[in-house]
């Protein structure tokens, strides 16, 4: 992997005039965190990509039970993030906290191996893995924010998310390569996944520096102070807007499902759509982050949601064939590139450093709960009114959401210098 020259965490802001400039001035801490995420995502996607196969096909699980468990896990993850976010601000040990999260997930692979076909063991292993993911997400993002200069938050998150997405591409490939080499060797996948996670944890422990805000918080952070970052008007609007837009999000699984139904291809192609989205995300994450730093983070964020709107239009259009699937998958990757890391960069830029953990936790929890709600609503509209009607409703709501968010966010953000370096 390309290793940049070490740069002090608080180097003076580099005006990213050249696109390559943004790339080169990313702090080593961000690269190391990215490497940890790459290996951990490789590890978890190895398991995730074979899990439906393992549970439904091998263990005779009902697909409905699997879906229900998945919903429950997402809920667990969202709540854990809140607690972990407050803990980051209170103890100011984001590296240790992230390390615990990564270690817990690594141990889950061994749990999966030990559980064998005993399903409560399998379910518990997955639940604890999500718990670990919930614990590590916020401290990791707080570390990235602390390692980057305010002007380069977008690029830093872009680099991290690109490495993360690279892991998500490699995971299924590695898993299916192993299954081809050792037929029915699900245990081999779990073992390889464990060691990948262990090496990822090694990168974090050995190379990532613990960086916490210099000044202590003005008052001790407690769970009761969870709402404090919301007192800031810009951040409050950001949470409101991103939650409102998330409510109009059709989850990937549904998008892929509609694509498969429209194109009439076999369900075996499902992993290809998934890998394609990750590839697009991987390629676009860094340019999107750099663009966000130069042009304004909320603009890029709204552009990301516009890409999602374009996905809906592809789903509604009469166009079919592999080309439509390709366009949809590329746009879906662009949506992730424009929203995920960019939202974290925006929030990190407007939040006071000592309240970043709590603030990031609020943002990610509210958007992921909104997405969960959106999935339920979408499924319900699909069943009661029809597939295309459901997509049309979501497209209308999303278009209205983008327009109102543009009015509410882009202008004030520009005025208050919310994109970090505009003053």
């Amino acid at each position: 992997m390309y290793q940049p020259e070490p740069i002090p965490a608080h180097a003076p802001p580099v005006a990213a005039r050249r696109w390559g400039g943004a790339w080169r001035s990313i702090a080593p801490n961000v690269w190391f965190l990215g490497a940890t995420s790459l290996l951990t995502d490789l590890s978890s996607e190895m398991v995730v990509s074979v899990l439906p196969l393992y549970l439904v096909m091998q263990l005779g699980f009902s697909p409905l039970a699997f879906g229900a468990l998945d919903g429950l896990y997402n809920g667990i993850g969202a709540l854990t993030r809140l607690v972990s976010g407050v803990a980051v601000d209170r103890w100011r040990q984001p590296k240790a906290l992230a390390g615990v999260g990564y270690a817990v997930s690594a141990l889950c692979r061994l749990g999966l191996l030990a559980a064998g076909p005993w399903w409560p063991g399998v379910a518990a292993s997955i639940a604890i893995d999500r718990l670990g993911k919930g614990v590590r997400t916020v401290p990791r993002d707080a570390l990235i924010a602390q390692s980057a200069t305010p002007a380069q938050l977008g690029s830093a998150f872009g680099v991290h998310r690109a490495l993360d997405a690279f892991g998500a591409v490699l995971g299924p490939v590695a898993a299916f390569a192993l299954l081809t080499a050792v037929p029915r060797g699900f245990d081999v996948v779990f073992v390889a996944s464990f060691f990948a996670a262990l090496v990822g944890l090694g990168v974090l422990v050995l190379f990532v520096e613990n960086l916490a805000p210099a000044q202590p918080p003005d008052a001790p952070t407690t769970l009761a102070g969870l709402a404090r970052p919301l007192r800031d008007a810009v951040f409050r609007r950001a949470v409101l807007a991103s939650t409102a837009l998330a409510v109009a999000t059709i989850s990937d699984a549904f998008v892929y499902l509609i694509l498969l139904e429209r194109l009439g291809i076999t369900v075996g192609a499902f992993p290809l759509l998934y890998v394609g989205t990750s590839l697009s995300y991987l390629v676009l994450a860094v340019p999107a982050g750099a663009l966000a730093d130069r042009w304004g983070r909320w603009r890029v964020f709204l552009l990301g949601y516009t890409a999602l709107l374009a996905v809906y239009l592809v789903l509604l259009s009469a166009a079919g064939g592999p080309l439509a699937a390709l366009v949809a998958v590329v746009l879906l990757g662009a949506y992730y590139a424009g929203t995920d890391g960019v939202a974290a960069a925006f929030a990190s830029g407007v939040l006071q450093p000592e309240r970043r953990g709590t603030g990031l936790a609020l943002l990610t929890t509210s958007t992921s709960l909104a997405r969960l709600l959106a999935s339920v609503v979408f499924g319900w509209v699909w069943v009661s009114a029809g597939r295309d009607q459901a997509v049309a409703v979501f497209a209308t709501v999303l278009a209205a959401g983008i327009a109102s968010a543009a009015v509410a966010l882009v202008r004030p953000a520009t005025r208050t210098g919310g994109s970090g370096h505009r003053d």
Partner: protein
Amino acid sequence: MTRRHRVWAFVALCVVAVAATIWYAGAAARRGTSNTVGSIADAGGAARLAAPPPRPYLISRSTMPGDTWRRLTLVPLSVPAGTGYVTDLACERAYFAGARGVCLVEAAEGLTIKYFADVFDERFVRLHRLPLTGLPSRTRVAPDGRLAAITVFETGHSYVETGFSTKTTIVDTMAGRTLTDLESFAVSRDGKPFRDVDFNFWGVTFTQDSNRFYATLASGGVKYLIEGDAARRTARVLRTGIECPSLSPDNTRIAYKHLLRADGYWQLRVHDLRTGMDTTLAKEVRSVDDQVEWADNDRILYHITGERGADIWSLKADGTEPPMLVRQYAYGPAAVR
């Protein structure tokens, strides 16, 4: 620890991780080959039959962890819990009648998963392989073994509640080719043509003449019992509320699953074609999501997926007795008479 120490520690970690993974994969690969080659003799402690038992016997898919996993296993219908003959066929779903069987196979090929229907003979040797367009769901072979019906999930295998779609085809097991898709059948309801784009067919059960069949047709959220004719490519709607029909050997009754609650709770019932009466098999209180199988004219067989795989249970078709455990670690029963 200096930076140099940390780098060396990391290199050591990587070496250990890679070496351990390769060692484990190598051990697993050797274990895998020793299990698939000459597997019937090497039973790992559990005794196995050296030859298929005489008819009538029960075919099911093993869910026992280990080297018999997924393999079709034959046991005498009189002592179904005991030692079985383990075939070399590994199937998601299977059925056998007359002199032909169908085994629905899932195979990972690189990044994608492919599905096939393998037609096999009474020696459990594959004769034909037909590609499938989706996840295997149900299969039945007509009593004379010449026709088979195969249902796959084309979409929504994990979203049963929100718009799934199934495809049911009729296969010529002798020639090894697909004859027709139920969606091309002329369907009538109350004497009038009945057509809709959202037609989904599944759960075929053949009659003794090996041409006519019963099946489920779903349209507009309603599930209909249909009676079809494979040669004429026609079908007519008989009634609603019957899902996954299974015809008794004497062709007088249909055992089926009835959706009691929208969250997926299915109750077993038996419909008498002579009297039109329905009997609820209320002694089975668990939800049964399976196309049941008749052991003989008095008892039905079905699997229940539990904590550690699936088990096969049996129930008297008149609903008078509680369910009996027939065979543990087994899935998808098919009685071969």
